[in-house]
């Protein structure tokens, strides 16, 4: 029996109710005794006041031994008068890439990767592709995890409730694929390359910065992060394309849709110590989950998904730069480059970010660069179809690009 269940199976409620009904129908007879007594000069006092006189007690504040959540107002210990605009793991930029470009003073090269990486992406042998196919089958079909999947909704009939499914979440699939692909890269690459790389799981970066007199703080959690002993070489000179115009978002401001709050902690976080050999962020692997939605409930656009990766790559590059050159650095002595792979376990999106400056004021001066591809499907279908495990339409392009990213130095 559930403890929370209140049971009135065996009770006399009906009797008691009836009793009250019967008693409630009685009319008290008015005897005028109070008036009569007062006429005779006898004071009438309520018997309750004589029996239970009111006692005034002092209010004692007791300090509880457990921590209570402070109120979210100006008494909060993290309260600041200055508003901070934050971007976390479950948020999206309203205006997508154009907002990211303005916010981060970045020139975007869409649907292309730098030439050096394209040259590294070579066709893999049949044996390697077989191993990749096997990795996909193991991670997306045969993994026996069963977790609650997100609720399904049909926009045509929004009130319809689908049965809640159990299976592999996008996060689990992405993590499986990432670790299997990185293992293959470890095996296929030269031993010196392998020794220069290190894999970090579950890390977080946080980078506060100022732009046009506003305070911003971007935080990002990476499921997997590849670090290297040597920093990635810049892909373009930082003084290039100084006169290229950034997109115009007028009448929107570049901070539109960001979370504004007075309660925040300014933190510079980077998952690796400054003295470490494997200090430099090389590639970050992030997962795009279905739970990441617009606050406005509008459908998420591809442009917004790309902009999310841009912001995360920027946050990683900026915190790496601060770790390398000091937290107050504005003009970087040398550009910091970070690669980013975003996936939901089916499609992959590749991005390279070159951070040239942390001086993000205005739209003039040195700009940062970013190259992205669109979403590339790893396969058309992977899962059980009428009781049979099926993998259809494997695309070798994805692993080629991951291998090129891994070997880029």
């Amino acid at each position, binding site marked *: *029996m*559930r403890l929370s269940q209140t*049971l009135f*199976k*065996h009770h006399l409620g009906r009797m008691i109710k009836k009793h009250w009904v019967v008693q409630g129908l009685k009319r008290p007879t008015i005897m005028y005794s109070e008036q009569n007594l007062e006429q005779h000069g006898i004071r009438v006092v309520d018997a309750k006041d004589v029996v239970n006189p009111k006692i005034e007690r002092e209010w004692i504040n007791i300090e509880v031994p457990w921590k209570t959540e402070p109120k979210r107002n100006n008494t909060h210990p993290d309260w600041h008068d200055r508003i901070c605009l934050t971007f976390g793991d479950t948020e999206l930029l309203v205006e997508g890439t154009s907002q990211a470009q303005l916010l981060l003073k970045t020139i975007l090269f869409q649907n292309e990767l730098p030439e050096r990486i394209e040259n590294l992406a070579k066709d893999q042998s049949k044996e390697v592709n077989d*191993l990749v196919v*096997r990795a996909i*089958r*193991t991670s997306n*079909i*045969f*993994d*026996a*995890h*069963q977790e609650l999947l997100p609720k399904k909704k049909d926009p045509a009939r929004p009130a319809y409730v689908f049965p809640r499914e*159990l299976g592999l979440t996008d996060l689990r699939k992405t*993590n*499986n694929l990432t*670790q*299997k692909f990185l*293992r293959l890269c*470890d*095996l296929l690459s030269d*031993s010196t390359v*392998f*020794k220069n790389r*290190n*894999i*970090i*799981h*579950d*890390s*977080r*970066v*946080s980078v506060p910065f100022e732009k046009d007199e506003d305070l911003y703080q971007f*935080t990002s*959690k990476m499921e997997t992060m590849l670090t290297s002993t040597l920093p990635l070489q810049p892909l373009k000179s930082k003084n290039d394309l100084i006169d290229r115009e950034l997109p115009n978002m007028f009448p929107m401001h570049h901070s539109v849709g960001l979370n504004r709050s007075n309660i925040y902690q300014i*933190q510079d*976080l*980077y*998952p*690796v*110590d400054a*003295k*470490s*050999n*494997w200090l430099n962020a090389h590639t970050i692997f992030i997962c795009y989950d279905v739970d990441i939605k617009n606050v406005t409930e509008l459908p998420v656009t591809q442009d917004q998904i790309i902009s999310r990766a841009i912001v995360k790559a920027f946050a990683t590059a900026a915190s790496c730069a601060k770790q390398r050159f000091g937290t107050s650095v504005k003009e970087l002595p040398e550009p910091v480059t970070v690669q980013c792979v975003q996936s939901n376990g089916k499609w992959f999106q590749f991005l390279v970010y070159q951070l040239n400056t942390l001086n993000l004021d205005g739209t003039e001066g040195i700009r940062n660069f970013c190259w992205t591809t669109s979403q590339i499907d790893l396969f058309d279908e992977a899962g*059980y179809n*009428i*009781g*049979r*495990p099926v993998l259809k339409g494997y695309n070798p392009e994805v692993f080629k690009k991951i291998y090129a990213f891994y070997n880029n130095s």
Partner: protein
Amino acid sequence: MTRMSLVRIKTRFCRGFDSSVGHIVRNYSVPASSEKHEKKAPQYPPIQDQFFKERRRRTYEKWHEDIKSIKTVEEKLFKINVPRYYGWKSLMMHEYQIPYNSLDQAQYITRTHLVKDMKLPSYYETLLGSDQLDHIVQEIRSQVEDAIAFEYIDRKREGILSENEFENRFLIDSTMAEAVVRQVNRILLANLSSKYSHLLETQVDYNSRLEAFWVVGGIDPTYQVQKCKENVPYLKKYANDPVDRHIQYKGKPIAQLRYDFPLHEFISLSESENPALTVPQYTLDPRTLGYSHEWQHGTSIPGFWPGDKSEFGGLSYHNCSYLTIRPKEYNDEIDALSTQSLLASYAWLLSQACYQGFSTFNDLTYPLVTQTIITNGQTWSFSAYQLNTTVVHSDHVNNNPRRNVCWITKPLKLFEKVENGKLVGFNEDVLRYIVSFYANAPQERVGINMKPYLGETENVVADIEDPERRAWLEKHYKHLVSNRPRHRLRPEIYAWQKIYMIDNKRRPMEKRREPWQFNINMGRRRLDDHTPEYIPKALRPGGPKSRKKWANTYYP
């Protein structure tokens, strides 16, 4: 032969006669004389013991034979669960909850002999020459040292762990264990894959799902069971007989390495029948140790669904950070580690054996082997396990000649401490153990039928030709093993009902609604005892007017 009634007499007029007077029968077409009078020896069926216990044993045996004859893995695992709609009342064993003094019990329920000399089998000495081993260890030592130092010193976890969590030794230890295992596994695989081809194709799973279900006999009956039996005349003499318990194990390995072929056996099956391999007796109710029961369907899952090519385990890493919060007064670290590794190895091998067509009722025809490492990042213990038998139900738990064998080492420290950004007192012996575990190559067992109890063409549900049956089995098997709670709770006798309806009959006029009022034992409800899925008229295969109202079910 034709039978015909010539006269019909009402029986009530013939009270005084024999009861056969009802029909007068005349047989026609009977030959006057048969040509041959051969005297054949009559063929009688074997005389069977008709006592209750023997009849019940035969019923169970038939059920076990039925499970054996099923062709696919999923259906076999399904069949074990069919007798119970609300699941088996199972003893829940979670990997990181190891009660005090539970080693004997763990050995008894898995029929495992634990080798006492705290050494691995001699097989490992012949596996690699000492020169070769030293060479490999020297090659990777600096890499491993650097990687572990990186995890302990250079890696910053602010933002992932909160301030309170940094003070939680248990959480810190398990985080470090996972991080170190990932680093060590990565370095070993990358360095050894060129030398050992089996490592190239191995599948590495992190945080995979490990579950195993088996039945153990020989447990003392509880007071209630004894009393129940004493109240039934024909059960009275069996009141003190030992009973079976269903056991459900749930593990959380950090990482598992799987191969296409099994590892080489340490001892042969005939050697496992040696009576010198002693197994302690522990027949007390497992609840005396602190375990508890839950109703759930028995699940055996070695981390992947049936059908994956790499179906033999090679090596699994487990976490021992629970030792930090274990009361110091227990002082039984080695026993706890032995119990953990023994149960984890048995559970993994049993679930692998289930995927080969064996089960807790159908015994192995060849041994299976696995290797287990338990660590918290700094302290490492290594164990090897050989599964020779899976049958421990009813009296097999004492009479089965085969025993499983477990070898385990003492916990060894990989390094003494971390000082000035470096590891102090790095122990190469630990690395030697790790390397020899990775170098232990799986081999194809030539001449042995690996799946004797599975179909020749149908091994798993995906091989079934009929699409409807295949899809039904796939969907319902996954639903079963997810152990999702049922929409309606399991009916029971509530406390108020016991007081006011059974013990004191205060509500005699009330309508009877509960199953127990009709003498229905809901604990005995079968899995297939439900209304089948309704097919709406518009979706009926024979058109809306067809009588096919209920969808097919394919319970094995």
